[in-house]
């Protein structure tokens, strides 16, 4: 176990970190110490003040999308998990309904995203429907290739990653605790806030880690749904890789990794997962 971890995770990570401090030219990496990858990345961050530099703008945008996606997946995921855990009595139905949540994963990423065009596009179903109902006269342009569509696609994809861990935590809650709470005169809301949420916390945190790490590094969904016009941290790495600027790409990857680790460690400060599990 440790060996696999070291070989396939730690070692590559160390390589990436080393390479990020190398120099490069048009076609090869030069194993000489250079912080060019980093200094280029933060180019203009001080000179352009008060305007934001590219990298800050990009990260603010990525964080914003991440926050929106996280709060929506949490809200929807929690609700779905609550329904599955407390309102669906039979085990079979719980399994069937959980499996239904995996439907978005049955098709390939690209196909799924191309499929949004006939729905949200200028001549898509939603616009045609609203126009037909007389609610709007011009097609709504912000439905597609906008932050709205990016968040929509991300929520559609990743709510499942919230549902499963939260459901898993909820199912372990001793039903007698909830009964006791009602017997002691608590309302449904009080039971939710004081009993269920605290006990489902580990699930919430694990789900949050899934969603945040995936969204922070995503460039495919943001690229396609944002019409390639919305910057993301992953996109910068991809552009650098495609230009064969491996050290610069590695530097950006290290920065992204650092920021993601910060977020995750803040989350685990809130809940000690090891203790709770």
């Amino acid at each position, binding site marked *: 176990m440790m060996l696999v971890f070291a070989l396939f995770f730690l070692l590559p990570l160390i390589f990436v970190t080393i390479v990020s401090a190398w120099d490069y030219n*048009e*076609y*090869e990496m030069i194993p000489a110490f250079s912080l060019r990858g980093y200094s*280029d990345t933060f*180019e203009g961050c001080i000179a352009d003040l008060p305007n934001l530099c*590219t990298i800050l*703008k*990009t990260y603010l*945008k990525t964080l914003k999308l991440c926050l929106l996606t996280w709060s929506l997946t949490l809200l929807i995921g929690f609700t779905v998990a609550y329904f599955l855990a407390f309102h669906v009595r039979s085990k079979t139905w719980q399994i069937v309904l959980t499996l239904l949540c995996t439907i978005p994963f049955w098709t390939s990423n*690209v196909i799924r995203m*191309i499929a949004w*065009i*006939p729905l949200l*596009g*200028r*001549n*898509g179903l939603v616009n045609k429907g609203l126009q037909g109902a007389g609610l709007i006269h011009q097609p709504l*342009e912000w439905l*597609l*290739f906008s932050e709205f569509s990016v968040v929509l696609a991300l929520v559609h994809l990743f709510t499942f990653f919230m549902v499963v861990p939260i459901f898993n935590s909820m199912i372990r809650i001793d039903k007698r605790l909830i009964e006791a709470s009602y017997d002691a005169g608590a309302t449904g809301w009080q039971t939710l806030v004081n009993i269920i949420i605290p006990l489902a916390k580990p699930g919430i945190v694990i789900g949050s880690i899934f969603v945040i790490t995936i969204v922070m590094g995503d460039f495919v969904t943001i*690229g*396609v749904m*944002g*019409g*390639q*016009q*919305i*910057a993301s941290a992953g*996109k*910068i790495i991809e*552009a*650098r*890789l*495609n*230009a*064969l*600027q491996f050290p*610069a790409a590695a530097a950006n990857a290290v920065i992204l990794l650092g920021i993601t680790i910060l977020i995750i460690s803040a989350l685990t400060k809130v809940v000690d997962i090891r203790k709770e599990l």
Partner: protein
Amino acid sequence: MSKSSKLNGGVSRRAMLKGAAGAVGLVAGSGAITGFPYVHSAEPKVLRYLGTAVNEGDDISKKCLEDTGIKIEYITATTDDVTKRVITQPNSFDVLDTEYFSLKKLVPSGNIFALDSKKIKEFDNITPVFTKGQLPNGKKIGNQGTAPWKVLYLEGANSKTFSKTPTEFVTLIPTVYNADTLGIRPDLIKRPISSWTELLNPEFKGKASILNIPSIGIMDAAMVVEATGQHTYADKGNMTKAEIDLTMKIMTEAKKAGQFRAFWKDFNESVNLMASGETVIQSMWSPAVTKVRSMGIACTFQPLKEGYRSWASGFCVSKAVSGPKLDWAYEFVNWYLSGWAGAYLNRQGYYSAVLSTAKANMTADEWGYWMEGKAAVADIKAPDGTILEKAGAKRDGGSYDDRMGGVACWNAVMDENDYMVRKWNEFIAA
């Protein structure tokens, strides 16, 4: 089969008969019985062919096997991944299908074999577009960017320096090329389009798109900037830092004003944007326009007065290839230029490198439609038999001489590539 026979410690009579019969059948089918057939060769002739999906047709590999006995194994990757693979894993392929502009990155890596032009049968018949930068009729064409003749020759067999004058050491044998321009939806625009400036015309606000491959996208942007008269570039394919700043500033303003609906990176994305009416004017590739049209949607590959941005691809051979495999590689390249493949490419709307052999493999009507800009006499069919154009139709942009003669610049890698990529990221983030 041969593997299991070896394991058994000898070739069984039955296996031998089966093998011989199969081989004879193959040879007889291809009509290439010249002395001893290749049943005696120690291993089957296999070439690993690395390239993008665009040129990797099953029809071509089948026909090649039939004619030469060489089995082509396709390794498919995106343009960027092909380049990465050549640089990092030169042993993982034999023949490379790539574009001329990549050579500026590939050749210095030392992983590309210098081909001997004397072993290429049709080398002297390759269109002068590649060797001299002029049309067969002598007209000079645009030389901005990484034009093929700038990177076609090497100074020596092991040289990493491009030669300015012709030598016998060739980097890349051209096979297919085209002149790219903007695709438009004539049914939605409803007026003639004749200049690159229209891409940034506020009339098409929220309905325009460009290619999100930085090195190519910025050249389309430069065509627009030059057309609007804001700047004349010395070389659109090799901008100075100031020129990159200027170009990206104009594009950023347009982006902030909401000019672009989306940028595209993938062939299918461009088809979808256009077919769904999300965009009405965008950078496009010829086969994508054909695909939109085959869906019954009007789409024109619009010739523009400032000219075309051209690209060309062909075959390189890996430095790791030697011995009989090298002979097969030459044989394959020679076969490719011998006409059948050229005609196949011409029928898709591309151009073939050796025009004379392709012409011999096409009907007069096909040649007239695709190459001479004449109205089609009968329906024009794609290689797979589907009807592309009805009789009477003319090709967008006209003849070969009109289209290739109108080339303004070639796909390129700039000296300031690193700076340009950073500016492109800034543009996307703006």
